């Protein structure tokens, strides 16, 4: 079944607050092999001009991909979740995510199309602080491969 074009532009209510912790940043930095001290050492981060340790650039996915699931849970989005793969990913950082950030994610459907039986859905997750300061825009293109 082709994706409904009227879904494009649909936005979902903001997520619960995600509080970014120093230990989580350090754990993620280790997992991606990011050795720069700005991810672990508050003094090094401050010396580089940051208020606290900063997350590696792809850390945003930890918050954004969970938030984007709201789209797949939408009963109007007729996508078979079990066939979904990650097709494309984009980040536009307004500033690095840092420890102490209280982030709220707002998800919007940017594109929906069906090509050769594959449903391709693009979800944009805007991460902002609780006070409304934009931090990162994370755009994920999810592909549900057409099956039997």
């Amino acid at each position, binding site marked *: 079944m082709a994706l409904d074009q009227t879904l494009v532009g649909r936005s979902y209510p903001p997520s619960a607050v995600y509080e970014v912790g120093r230990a989580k940043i350090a754990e993620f930095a*280790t997992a991606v092999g990011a050795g720069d001290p700005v991810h672990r050492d508050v003094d090094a981060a401050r010396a580089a001009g940051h208020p606290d340790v*900063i997350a*590696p650039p792809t850390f945003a996915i930890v918050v954004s991909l969970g938030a984007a699931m709201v789209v797949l849970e939408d009963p109007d989005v007729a996508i078979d979740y079990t066939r979904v793969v990650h097709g*494309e*990913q984009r*980040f536009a950082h307004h500033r690095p995510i840092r420890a102490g950030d209280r982030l709220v994610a707002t998800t919007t459907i940017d594109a929906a199309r069906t090509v050769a039986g594959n449903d391709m859905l693009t979800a944009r997750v805007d991460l902002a602080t609780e006070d409304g300061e934009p931090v990162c825009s994370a755009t994920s293109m999810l592909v549900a491969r057409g099956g039997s």
Partner: protein
Amino acid sequence: MTVEVGTELPEQVFRVTRADLVRYAGASGDLNPIHWSDRTATSVGLPGVIAHGMLTMAVAGRAVTAWTGDPAALVEQHVRFGRPVVVPDDDQGAEITVRGKVGALLDDGRARVDLTVTSDGDKVLSLARAVVALA
């Protein structure tokens, strides 16, 4: 650092083992078994356990931040996942090679870097670009 269109980044080679996949699964919360179970991976038609696409993206980003020297200078990144990185169950794991060069100079002291990310000779990201703020 003089940066112009065509400036090449130093080639970077990264190694990803099964242990790295388990560590990334835990840190990211992506527990999809295709990244740790051969049984699951082969049942969906993959040759074996594959790396998380987001781990490959992170590794590609590291080649850029190693070049700029500042993780905060990476202001945009865009990748399209092409082929999976198959990670064998041995001590060597898979090798990911990242090459890059400056594709364009943008406004506000920024530059676009075009990356070529390969594993075992195959391009694993069919598109990989970053925008960096030049110091």
